[in-house]
């Protein structure tokens, strides 16, 4: 919680054209344009999401520092955001992320059995990455698609009413 009405802007001593990539900067600029000019930091969440996607699904400290410099934010303010929200990963992950919803409707719909199945069949427990680096398995809190329980989010796509066979097929189709 903050009582400030202005952002704690910190201009870094760096040439912004050396940060990230031109494509990422253009994408981030599109988000920055939505907010008042002095509130560039409003774009920090979409910026981190874009940078993470570009980096194979996880964020390094160097990348977070570059986002901070690009948005005129103190580094620690970026770390706070990156560690607070569940969609950011700060450790290396597999090529794909499989997120199984574990909240009440999905639990009643058999999400637990699904997780046990993946562990038994594929040897990957929640929080782990498969040995071939294909996927990281995550338990996720409510994905907001409860009428299709159990729901599994694979990268950017929701899969609905997923059965054990269904998750096997999903995994086999991933590259």
């Amino acid at each position: 919680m903050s009582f400030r009405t202005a952002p704690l802007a910190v201009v870094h001593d760096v040439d912004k054209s050396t940060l990230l990539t031109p494509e990422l900067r253009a994408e981030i600029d599109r988000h920055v344009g939505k907010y008042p000019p002095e509130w560039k930091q409003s774009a920090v969440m979409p910026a981190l999401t874009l940078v993470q996607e570009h980096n194979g699904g996880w964020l390094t400290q160097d990348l977070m520092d570059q986002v901070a410099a690009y948005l005129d934010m103190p580094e620690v303010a970026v770390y706070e955001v990156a560690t607070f929200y569940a969609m950011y990963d700060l450790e290396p992950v597999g090529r794909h992320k499989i997120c199984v919803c574990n909240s009440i409707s999905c639990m009643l719909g058999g999400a637990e059995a699904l997780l046990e199945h993946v562990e038994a069949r594929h040897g990957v427990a929640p929080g782990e990455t498969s040995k071939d680096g294909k996927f990281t398995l995550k338990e996720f809190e409510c994905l907001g698609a409860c009428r299709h329980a159990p729901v599994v989010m694979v990268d950017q796509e929701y899969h609905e009413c997923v059965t054990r066979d269904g998750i096997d097929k999903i995994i086999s189709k991933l590259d």
Partner: protein
Amino acid sequence: MVDHQDTVCFRTMRLRPKIRHTLKAYRSVGGYVQWERILREKPSPETLIEEIKLSALRGRGGAGFPTGLKWSFMPRNKPGQKYIVCNSDEGEPGTCKDRDIMRYNPHQLIEGMAIAGYCIGATVGYNYIRGEFYEPIDRFEEALLEAYQAGLLGKDLQGSGIDFDLYTHLGAGAYICGEETALLESLEGKKGQPRFKPPFPAQAGLYGKPTTINNTESLASVPVILEKGGQWFLEQGRPNNGGPKLFSVTGHVNKPCNVEVPLGTPFRDLLALAGGVSGGRRLKAVIPGGSSVPVVPGEVMMETDMDYDSIAKAGSMLGSGAVIIMAEGTCMVKVLANLAHFYAHESCGQCTPCREGTGWLERVLERILHGQGRPSDLDLLDNVAGRIGGRTICALGDAAAMPVQSFLKHYRHEFEHLIEHGTPLVEAA
């Protein structure tokens, strides 16, 4: 179910699935007629707010606060920027209605936000959508583009001198951002930790400016209220409980679904619309308004109507309209342990009673569930829950405490059995 001519948020649902989210489809059901009328005639915002008050539309996100009253708190004539923010951070376990509004009827949300902006004097709006909603985000963005191209959003709209710009803001996975002041912090690029109130957002909200935050379904209801009149909307429901409402019926039912039904519909009819309890089982318990509200025994629910006041009388809350059905054979200790895990995971960590208390609740419930409970544990749970409720900045603490107290009240014997015998009284769900 609501007859198709009386649908509100699901007005486009009867159209062809491939096109129902488009501008053309929305126009075919009367879309943007109200916004264009406002641009043409510039009615006084007061009369529009009076119409919303008359409709008895209550906030659909969970709190049930009257929308018209909320809008009237805005210092509309005060100079300076003001904002309208839509809360599409849908994440209350059991709730999946706003996702479908954005997938199937995104233009109605845009029109509702534009009208809300006009009423409260805001020329800029943000729709805060949870980051996991890739498909709804794409649909909403496509609709925004269409609306801009059609001259329905932007500056000096249709020569009226009225400006309204609308943007999508992406979340990144945090239940707490559904709390309106946490959402504002998140929009400002910070951790989503709720603000102390007062000041309320109508005085100092986004970037310190006057701001109104409404739920997706509330805002999407607005164009139809103006089209058919506040009185019509009120009559669809009950006094003080205006309109139809979307209910997400999930859990142990044959046909989990989102349905739009008039407020005041008997629960047993809603259950029938969802195909009844799955497997031909008996109804055991219902959480009638999302995971944060007290659980109600099945036999009580069967005699209750689905509106804010009736559910309050049954000892719970309508909340977000997420109706979670549990059949006989469901282990209530396991269900409560699941809920406790959720709140412990999602506590933002700002207030000690919630940060520490939700962890205690989770750990004690886990040990009971795994047959390691102690006879004193039920008093401990009650005690911890009692020390969270009412002692935190936001309602997440209360949301974590309320289920504990209600589960212990109605299903205490299941907890006692597990503590005494080390195995559940009923088979696990």
